[in-house]
């Protein structure tokens, strides 16, 4: 056998087994997406900190200085910041994951690997930024003495997991549909607007309920404002609202409502006015997350086999 130049050829390296191969690929994809996100910008990674900070400044000015919306606690500022950081994660994670399949057409058409790796990598890359921001919020809270640390801080971990699963489930669903229907990105943008106001980023559910009490107190009957009750119920069932409120409670202040309060407690308050009785209301947000993940995974699996052809 001619060996003209292959004296110089290196010996082949052993390949990783399947599981470690895909784990490694996920990590590398997440790292490179993280790097790519801040390429060609002067401030680079700083943008991931500046953006929520700017949104916070604007929101604080409008809602606190201008409209005097405040839930009456001295923790409002830091709670608003935490809400914005969580919301930024949710919106960026879903947006970047949605495009992750369509924008990696070259990879999908030339190499085989489970397609969900691309979505996982995109969402992990967002999660990483989020976790750094979360630490910064925590440090700010400690510095400003706007925090009341307790053992409940350990609940942050399952709550973050819940939030991530929700964002990931939605990402699977959106990214699978986005391959053939770019329409979903426009639709999702509008939905995100709606969700922003329906997730209590700028105000807590308590605040909404206070306004409701007020509204219902001054001569309005429940028959005249049934939509208000419905809106509150929907908000209470919204898993993003639940995680934001619960994270505020677990990480910052025990005064912020806890799931039990958010759902059953506040619904009980609503029930004074509405003739509804929902005994299974506490697990509603959790069931919603499970449903989203299931639907997302099934949709993705059914469509993934044809990604290479449809791209």
């Amino acid at each position, binding site marked *: *056998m*001619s*060996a*003209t*130049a*292959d*004296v*110089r*050829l*290196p010996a*082949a*390296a*052993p*390949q*990783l087994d399947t599981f*470690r*191969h895909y784990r*490694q*690929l996920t*990590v*590398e*994809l997440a*790292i*490179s997406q993280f*790097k*790519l996100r801040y*390429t*060609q910008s002067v401030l680079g990674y700083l943008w991931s900190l500046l953006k929520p900070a700017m949104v916070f400044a604007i929101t604080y000015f409008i809602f606190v200085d201008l409209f005097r919306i405040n839930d009456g606690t001295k923790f409002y500022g830091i709670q608003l910041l935490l809400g914005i950081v969580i919301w930024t994660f949710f919106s960026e994670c879903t947006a970047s994951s949605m495009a992750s399949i369509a924008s990696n057409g*070259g*990879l*999908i*058409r*030339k*190499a*085989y*690997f489970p397609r969900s790796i691309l979505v996982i990598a995109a969402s992990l890359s967002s999660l990483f930024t989020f976790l750094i921001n979360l630490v910064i919020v925590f440090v700010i809270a400690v510095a400003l003495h706007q925090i009341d640390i307790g053992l409940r801080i350990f609940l942050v971990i399952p709550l973050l997991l819940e939030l991530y699963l929700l964002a990931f489930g939605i990402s699977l669903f959106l990214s699978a549909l986005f391959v*053939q*229907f*770019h*329409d*979903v990105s426009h639709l999702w943008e509008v939905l995100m607007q709606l969700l922003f106001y329906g997730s209590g980023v700028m105000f807590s559910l308590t605040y909404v309920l206070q306004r409701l009490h007020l509204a219902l107190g001054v001569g309005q009957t429940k028959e005249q404002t049934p939509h208000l009750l419905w809106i509150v119920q929907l908000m209470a069932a919204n898993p993003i609202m639940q995680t934001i409120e619960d994270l505020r409670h677990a990480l910052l202040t025990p005064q912020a409502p806890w799931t039990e309060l958010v759902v059953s407690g506040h619904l009980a308050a609503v029930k004074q006015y509405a003739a509804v009785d929902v005994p299974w209301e506490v697990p509603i947000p959790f069931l919603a997350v499970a449903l989203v993940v299931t639907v997302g995974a099934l949709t993705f699996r059914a469509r993934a*086999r*044809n990604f*290479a*052809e449809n791209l």
Partner: protein
Amino acid sequence: MADRDLAIRVEHLSKRFRIPLDRSATLKHRLTHWRSATRYRILQALVDVSFDVRAGEFIGIIGHNGSGKSTLLKILSRIYQPNAGVVAIQGKVSPFLELGVGFNPELTARDNIFLSGAILGLSRAELHRRLEDIIGFAELEQFVDHKLKNFSSGMQVRLAFSLAIQAHADILMMDEVLAVGDAPFQQKCFDVFNRYKREGRTVVLVTHELSAVTTYCDRALLLDHGRLVADGDTADVTAQYRHAIGMAADGGRADAEMERWGSRDVVVTGIRMLDERGVEDTNPATGGFVRIEFGYVIQNDVVADFSCVLWLMRGDGVMISESNLPVSQYAQVGESQRGAGGTIRFDIPQLTLLDGAYSIDVELQGRRDRAVFDHLKNGLHFRVIDRRERRGVIEPGGAWSVVPAEQPADVPEPLASTRRAGRDERPGRRRS
């Protein structure tokens, strides 16, 4: 798979593509036209294809553009799902088909190595260990931390190749890897093919380069409009393919483009390479007889007489020899009238070139002013096959001899090197 020797088994494989006739496949369109089924054109990419590949076989898939070669390779690699049929694979399949999959122009060479290496299934620790080798082999030491978008395409290919040869897989699927590089790169590819063959790996190669198929593949498959029309010995299958597409000879069409210039007062027609029987053959063997033959036609009366030069070039552009038509032969070609012509032959009784890709350049020029009438660069490509697989470029035809000394030399007892000298007939040959 019952048979342990089998690497790939394909049974009754069919693949259809549905190509929508109107591209407005938006959600709105779906919603407003949900009654009328979207109109599709069905493209039958593969029809009832069945074959087996044994472990260690080097198999080539050939066929014209759109015959289903790449589709078949993508189904074997699990990138496409078949509509019907069964694919069974035994062994670890290389997860990608082409060089540089996963490369991102905005990332540095280093980042790209880790990303693309991860697709290949290499661990981060392993890549760290081999980083210097990979960069060194690609000759890109200065550019490790430069973004890929600032690399020339040649540099990118070198990096991709250097990375690809690091990976180990039992079964390799390769789609047109030869199409991207220049001659030295192709030579490197061939070296890797040799290594794969030696290591007994299973390789499925899709290519237009018929000479590569005949040289390296044990077997070839010919696809035509999605059907498997031939499966067997490479020489037979490539011959059938050439016949089908009306290619008179190997011609090496996938090689470097022919370039041509000159006044065309006299033109060269049909360069051919013949064996001792007068049969066209662009895969001559080392030591064999080769005749290079081409016609000339005089197109202009003013031509008094002309001369001819023939260059033998190695695939990477190195000139091996330059041969001029001897003055004594000018009379036969000169002083002719418009329309006259003939044949010029260049015979090599014993080809001394060794394994590799070569080409021929020819020039017809005015005898006195050396004006170029017709110059053909890469006028003919050919690949020399050395059955004895010797290394190097030429066989010098040297003769060995060993002459033992008359008197035994004064050597201390433990050393007995003179006694072994006779066995070491071929120095420089390394055992691997």
